[in-house]
């Protein structure tokens, strides 16, 4: 068990080894920053991490030290031009305020102002957030349907034939898709150009054939009856499959038969 004096920052024990000099520990390899920012669920989470890392008790945090470290992260993140959520900056301002208050002489008749003590408020928020964080972990550890257990069912007896499956009208499907597109367009991040449906359909067909045969000659995928347009569609589909890394084309020697295969075959 750790036995350091509470609040003695220079004697924190991290993963079993004593730390006497915390500041160096703040260094983070630049490429890890993005990972770190992703890893935190917000300023409270970051603060909690800084506190925990030193095995400190939340209610005894040394605001000056934590502020220094927090500012260190923020400065690094800003230097790396990460888009910091405003919440991180609000927290920085709050910490700075607490720190400056702490520097003021103790009394000055401010004792009646207990409720407004920003340090107490910060500690309350940290404790509350930690509770949520731990509850979330506990929730995720609980056995969950489909992940940790399955529902046991048996087929209903024949004649009863399960209430007919839902019927879907073609227009419902189109409407669902157009609404989806409209929504995706709002979050314009997904402006992907897609090939014509005929090509995508052909891609599916090629993959389906490859599932049965594992290898096809190119000529097997073209059919004369489809005419020129059909050949073009097949050709585009094959190119797209190769481009998306779903298939490879193999030719033993120039001028010989060209084969198409799925990228890897589970034998």
């Amino acid at each position, binding site marked *: *068990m*750790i036995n350091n004096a509470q609040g003695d920052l220079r004697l924190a024990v991290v*993963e079993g080894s004593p730390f006497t000099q915390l500041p160096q520990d703040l260094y983070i390899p630049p490429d890890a920053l993005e990972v770190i920012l992703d890893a935190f*669920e*917000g*300023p*409270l*989470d970051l603060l909690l991490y800084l506190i*925990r890392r030193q*095995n400190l*008790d*939340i*209610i005894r945090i040394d605001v000056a030290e934590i502020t220094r470290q927090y500012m260190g992260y923020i400065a690094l993140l800003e230097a790396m031009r990460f888009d910091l*959520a405003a*919440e991180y900056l609000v*927290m920085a301002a709050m910490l700075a305020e607490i720190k400056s208050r702490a520097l003021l002489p103790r009394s000055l008749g401010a004792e009646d102002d207990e409720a407004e003590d920003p340090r107490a408020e910060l500690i309350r*928020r940290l*404790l*509350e*957030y*930690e*509770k*949520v*964080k*731990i*509850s*979330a*972990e*506990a*929730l*995720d550890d*609980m*056995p*969950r*349907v*489909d*992940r*940790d*257990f*399955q*529902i*046991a*069912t*048996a087929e*209903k*007896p024949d004649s009863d034939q399960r209430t007919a499956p839902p019927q879907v009208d073609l227009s419902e499907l189109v409407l669902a898709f157009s609404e989806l597109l409209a929504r995706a367009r709002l979050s314009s991040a997904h402006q992907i150009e897609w090939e014509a449906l005929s090509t995508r359909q052909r891609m599916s067909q090629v993959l389906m054939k490859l599932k049965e045969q594992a290898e096809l000659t190119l000529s097997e995928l073209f059919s004369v009856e489809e005419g020129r347009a059909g050949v073009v569609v097949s050709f585009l589909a094959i190119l797209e499959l190769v481009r998306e890394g779903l298939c490879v084309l193999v030719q033993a020697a120039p001028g010989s038969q060209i084969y198409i295969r799925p990228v890897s075959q589970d034998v």
Partner: protein
Amino acid sequence: MDLKRILEGALFASREPMSIYQMKKLFGNQKAPTEGMLREALASLSDDYQARAIHLVEVAGGFRFQVSESLIPYLANLTDDKPSKYSRATLETLAMIAYRQPVTRGEIEAVRGVAVNTQIIRTLKERGWITVVGHKEVAGRPALLATTTEFLNDFGLKSLEELPSAEDLIVSPTEDLLDQMDIHGE
């Protein structure tokens, strides 16, 4: 046919947990068994399956048969579909709703210290785990969110009280936090 057999067949035919009410409904116009009789038959049925790979369990929505957790590694070999994993943000939002319900999005944001993405709420609603139970009578009338019976069913719970107690997880910060950290130590 005896009561136990009827219940057994009906439970296996149903995908959703069956409540006592639904079990009574099985008998239509005939005289339905009493709740006591049903529970007795269920207990006996549960015994029958003691040594098998499936078990009768009770969750919020009623009773259902469940395949043992020990089968999961085998079943995982059958399918490509990996069960959805949820991000920390989603889990924390769900935890807030489960433990503090009914709660508004603003209240969740206040505790987590960050904005709650609309998509998280949508994911949880779509999963059927949360629902809007009303609106708070403050400016903007924000929706009050709560967990559903389906949430309890999917987590194998009979009621919210069975959720691990958040208070127990951190008893007293001053003393136990250090212990906690040792346990969860990264």
